[in-house]
């Protein structure tokens, strides 16, 4: 490096010319790149971390999905069971509010469906229609009549008339009961021909 400078200084430039040229060319050699030797460790760590994270993440995702699937299955089963139970209860409810059942219960309590409707108007307290007390005759038979039995199984009642010996109270009572029975029977069959 120091010799070309020296040659120029000595004045022998011409003679030194080719040498200078070569020297100049020599000076233009590519400077070796500065290679910093970094450690591969961070990169490897990063890659393996990503890889590991990916694998673990996928695994956990898969696991959680499986877990969710288990939960979903059991909850679906639970929902189906509850749904079935609800429907069973609804069926029971429908049985309970069947008009026939309600009417039978009401009849057992002595209630009768009245025959003549009447209304009470709240604005002026006026009664519309003809109010009448419901009687036994208004009632509707809720159950079909039992089939008629043959005479052998259904003998005529053996009626023995006993005259009361003392006091008229017993007789009057008995007569009233007989009359009631008769009217019950005729109430079921409408008489008159048009």
């Amino acid at each position: 490096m120091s010799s070309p400078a020296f040659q120029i200084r000595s004045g022998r430039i011409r003679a030194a010319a080719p040498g200078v040229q070569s020297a100049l060319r020599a000076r233009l050699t590519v400077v070796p790149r500065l290679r910093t030797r970094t450690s591969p460790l961070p990169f490897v760590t990063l890659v393996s971390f990503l890889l590991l994270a990916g694998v673990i993440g996928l695994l956990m995702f898969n696991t959680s999905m499986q877990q969710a699937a288990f939960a979903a299955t059991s909850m679906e089963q639970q929902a189906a069971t509850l749904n079935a139970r609800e429907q069973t209860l609804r069926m029971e409810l429908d049985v309970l509010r069947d008009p026939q059942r309600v009417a039978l219960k009401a009849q057992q309590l002595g209630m009768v469906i009245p025959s003549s409707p009447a209304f009470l108007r709240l604005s002026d307290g006026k009664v519309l229609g003809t109010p009448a007390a419901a009687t036994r005759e208004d009632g509707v038979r809720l159950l079909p009549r039992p089939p008629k039995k043959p005479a052998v199984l259904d003998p005529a009642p053996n009626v023995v008339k006993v005259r009361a010996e003392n006091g008229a109270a017993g007789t009057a009572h008995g007569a009233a009961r007989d009359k009631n029975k008769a009217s019950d029977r005729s109430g079921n069959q409408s008489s008159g021909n048009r």
Partner: protein
Amino acid sequence: MRRTVSRYPRRGRVVPRGALRGSPHLRLRLGFIAIAMVLSVFGARLVQLQGVDPHAYAAMAAAEGTVTLDLPAHRGDILDRNGKPLADDIDGSMVVADPSVTRDKAPELARFLAHRLDIDYFVTLKALRQKDRKFAYIARRVPASKAADVVAEAKAAGFKGLDTRHDPIRDYPAGDVAANLVGFVGTDEALAGFESNFDELLAGTDGSERYAVGRGNRIPLGDATTKLPVDGQDLQTTIDLDLQWYTQRVLRQTVEDASADSGFAVVMDSKTGEVLALADDPTFDARNPQAAPRKDRVTRAMTDVYEPGSVEKVLTLSALIDAGKATAHTRVTVPPELPSGDRVIHDWFDHGTLYLTLAGVLAQSSNIGTVLATRNFDSGQLRDYLVKFGLGQKTNVGVAGETQGILPDPSIWTSMTQDRIAFGQSLSVNALQMAAAVNTIANGGVRVSPSLIRGTAVTDDGLVVGTDTATTTRVVSSAAAKQMSRMMERVVDPDAGVAPAAQIAGYRVAGKTGTAQRVGPFCGCYNGTFTVSFAGFAPADKPRFTVYVVVQNPRNGGGGGSVAGPAFAKIMSYALRRYGVPPTGSAPSQLPTTWRPGQVASR
């Protein structure tokens, strides 16, 4: 090599075994042979799998770990007008068993099941003991939660081989209420009524689902195909469940008390034509249809034809008034009998010569008076009116097997025919037809076509029915309808009319009785039995409901007024009370029913 030789010096020239064993060529060759043998086994297996029966193996592979589920469609409910179910679908299960597993403990298991599921012990025992079977029905149509509980209990008690399968239950919560209309379903198909007539609409389409499972759980990202089921639609009827129930009970009592063959009753909303109740008796329990004879499982009110009798006079006389041929005051002189062609027409009661107004003719239900008045019609006029009233045509409300009735063709319509048709003979109707015709008067002369379905629905035959398709036709003028309504009020008058039993205290009721001879099924002639009926509406001056009660062949000697009249009154008063219709409070009709010869006409 040298070392080997030196190791076995005594064997000398004999090629030592070790030499061959060590030879790479031989080793290679043996290796190849072994590999070739293994590969040819694989090859053979491959040919077997792919060549011989690839599909079976593919199917087996697919079946391993996949599950196919049927996704059954929910069958639509049949509802009443307020949304109460007449028929509904309930999640149910069938309990099935694998007899090859259950054989060993059959008696114990049968006892357990018979106790828990209320089934027959011996049938169950037989099913559980079957030989060479892998499947047996134990109980069908069990509520799902109960079936699941029973199977779980059985498992806990150590019984194996039980399982449940989907098996929906069709429930009819109201039993026999509207059963004739609603119908019922059999084990696998709809058999009668709306169930069968609207089956396509109600049934929907089943779906299916296939997915991969692992340990009984669905694999989230596994193969899955799903075809969603399309649920059936609900069918809402115009029936009022409670009113229908009451109508059926009254009708049954009426039919029983009269020792009659059968009966039907119709309750219609006068304005809209919606049928609130359509009752038949005898009827059946839809939960147990097999218990009733087949003939009781149809809608008699729609499938039976019968001659309407005197109720028909309402149509004839209102047509006469509309045509301007008569008024309610028209005076008719009614002779004791009237010749008509080769026959003689009588009234239901013997009488001398009567002097009745047209209102009186209706109130006394005089055949002769009606015929005399009707003879004023122009030719063909009456028939045109009756067609407009809807006779001779189906009502098309969605009931299968409806009869269209018989209205004689113009070609066979003689004056004699007309005489008889005037009072309700020689033509046949179904009950709903007749109810709709009488309702025309209630609705001010406009016939509104009856409907049983709310909104619209399409039957399996492709017929569109429902309230949305209801039509209105003007048949008679509102003035004629009003006059007829006032005439009909006289029918239930205790003094002037024949049906005081149909009166409802406090209300103005318009009605008409009918007592018609019945045509026997075999001879085609009148067989001495009767059809008695009562049709009417209330309140007469502002009609809300039209009720029509028909009783076939009463054996207690009663007529329309005494048999059907009280039933009409009961049903009508229940309807009026239920819908809160107060009496109008106006003065009842006082139309004169008789006149005295020599008296000056009032109008």
